[in-house]
């Protein structure tokens, strides 16, 4: 095993303290990962090029004609703040979903609530998932629809979303906030620094035979 590339005290990832840009609203509760990226687009061995397939079946009919969907609308090209409703990203664990959104251009997702695995996958990409109450989110969606060019500012550390004259009191989950603000969301580097303690924990478990634990010299 190669040595960890990160030593204690050093931040292993870029700090994400703030996201600023224009918004794109996608309305509806329980938007699942099969809608965000249909499974047939996952027959790939890299994440490259997934962005174009975001919400594909919501955006195109059987003859590939465009349907009404914010991701098709010219006014939202270049938007980087996705504004959604409740339980967004439910369903499968596919990281292809946030990967597709990120590669489309999304840098942050704001919503009423998120499915856990989806939020975790976003964090692994340095994409904040910020929550606020239903009323505030719906007002933001209305605002973005009326003002697609207007700037939205997400302050991850202060847990606020600012647009126009409005400041939404938002929530960024504790661990996520710390990870993003301090630049410690690259968990491979973070955990790789504790290899000795990992071996110790492994050896303490009755079901792990000694030969399964890599040697200390490795």
């Amino acid at each position: 095993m190669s040595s960890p590339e990160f030593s204690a005290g050093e931040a292993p990832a870029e700090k994400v303290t703030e996201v600023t840009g224009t918004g794109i609203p996608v309305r509806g509760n329980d938007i699942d990962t099969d809608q965000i990226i249909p499974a047939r687009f996952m027959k790939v061995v890299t994440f490259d090029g997934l962005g174009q397939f975001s919400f594909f079946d919501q955006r195109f009919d059987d003859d590939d004609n465009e349907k009404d969907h914010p991701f098709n609308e010219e006014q939202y090209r270049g938007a980087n703040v996705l504004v959604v409703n409740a339980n967004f990203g439910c369903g499968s664990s596919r990281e292809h979903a946030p990967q597709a959104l990120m590669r489309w251009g999304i840098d942050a997702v704001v919503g009423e609530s998120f499915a856990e695995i989806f939020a975790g996958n976003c964090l692994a990409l340095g994409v904040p998932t910020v929550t606020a109450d239903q009323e505030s989110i719906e007002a933001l969606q209305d605002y973005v629809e009326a003002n697609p060019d207007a700037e939205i500012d997400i302050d991850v550390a202060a847990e606020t979303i600012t647009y126009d004259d409005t400041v939404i009191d938002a929530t960024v989950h504790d661990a996520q906030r710390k990870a993003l603000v301090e630049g410690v969301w690259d968990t491979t580097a973070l955990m790789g620094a504790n290899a000795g303690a990992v071996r110790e924990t492994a050896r303490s478990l009755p079901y792990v035979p000694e030969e399964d634990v890599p040697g200390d010299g490795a």
Partner: protein
Amino acid sequence: MSEGTLYDKVWDRHKVTELPTGQDQLFVGLHLVHEVTSPQAFGMLKERDQEVAFPERTHATVDHIVPTGNRDRPYRDEAAEEMMAELEENVRGSGIDFSDPDSGDQGIVHVIGPEQGLTQPGMTIVCGDSHTSTHGAFGALAFGIGTSQIRDVLATGCVAMEKQKVRRIEVTGELGEGVTAKDVILTIIGKLGTDGGVGYVYEYAGEAIEKLGMEGRMSICNMSIEGGARAGYVNPDETTYEWLEGTDAFENDPEKFERLKPYWESIRTDDDAEYDDVVTIDGSAIEPTVTWGTTPGQTAGITEPIPDPEDLPEEDRDTARRAQKHMRVEPGDTMEGYEIDVAFLGSCTNARLKDLREAAAFVEGREVDDDVRAMVVPGSQRVRDAAEAEGLDEVFKDAGFDWREPGCSMCLGMNDDQLQGDEASASSSNRNFVGRQGSKDGRTVLMSPIMVAAAAVTGEVTDVREMEEVATV
């Protein structure tokens, strides 16, 4: 916070340290790998010039894209062939055991882990698949992870997690005739919602759960994620140990079984454990249950009316309206009599030997409706072989079912097994999302294996209890 539950104990035993983020670093006892979510993780590992830290604690199979018909290599589907070849290269280069189709051990990752005895109580188990919660049936702490986390586990043998709350779901009483584990979990999700479990791990308990065999417990834990709970578990007991004794891990090593049993006993939830929440459900009141909508929480007992969206909580109305339009159902009707075009018996929820046995017993002597295409996709090659040894394949084939090779198949339509156009399916799988079974206009009704068998025969959603009465007259 919970105290003294299996979750607390397994967590503590696997905790390496607390990370600067406030998350805990947990050692992973078993990492299961399949072809769809792992290639990018292996790619990231290579980019960082790192190797797999614990290859012996890692096991791979191929299930999502593998054809269930002609399996000659190279696969006809070039993308499937590429993914399979990539997986082969990745696991062989890392010294990871691979239950490939030539081994006779291939199958859906959540079927092969338990059947080979890889899955054991008191383990932490992860896989890049949300239905990893299945393994909680053995008293393991098992959950799905994303690809970047797969990279974490490959590189460090660990995952970064925050501890969650524990909700005990106690299912009391005895399940009625024709009511299965699948009906129990569909009922639970219907009651608690698709996001009711967010932030929680579910502990399933109570008389109705304890009386279930391992297959039923797996069906329940499997769908924890459909209720928003990333993990669900059942405390290990004699039923669990009996299953384990018959697996590869222990059948020739009783000494190992005896050595590990005290550990398994030690991680059971204490009698005086504290939970963050407790929910009680009357198991005796559960009917055969099906979905009427496009989320696994939109369920109704077979004799219950489909709800009027106006009567639902405000936040559920819009989703319900869209779902009813997609499914073409009306409030006030029941799902009984809903016409189907396809019957799918398979998936990590319900494609184990017991599921096939129960469905076959119902199908025997009956015929699939002329307008229905029906298929059985066994969960693994071992399930297939065992079923064939009992002649179940002949029962299904005689009735008009297609008997196929193991894989995820029409649960998510990543191979040729897909709904066409607006076909409606009676499906023993776990998700009825729009587009899930391969066609964006397809309509999925989730139900138990015996309800799928009944629907295949009648061509419509059918109360299996009435069918059985007819059969026994």
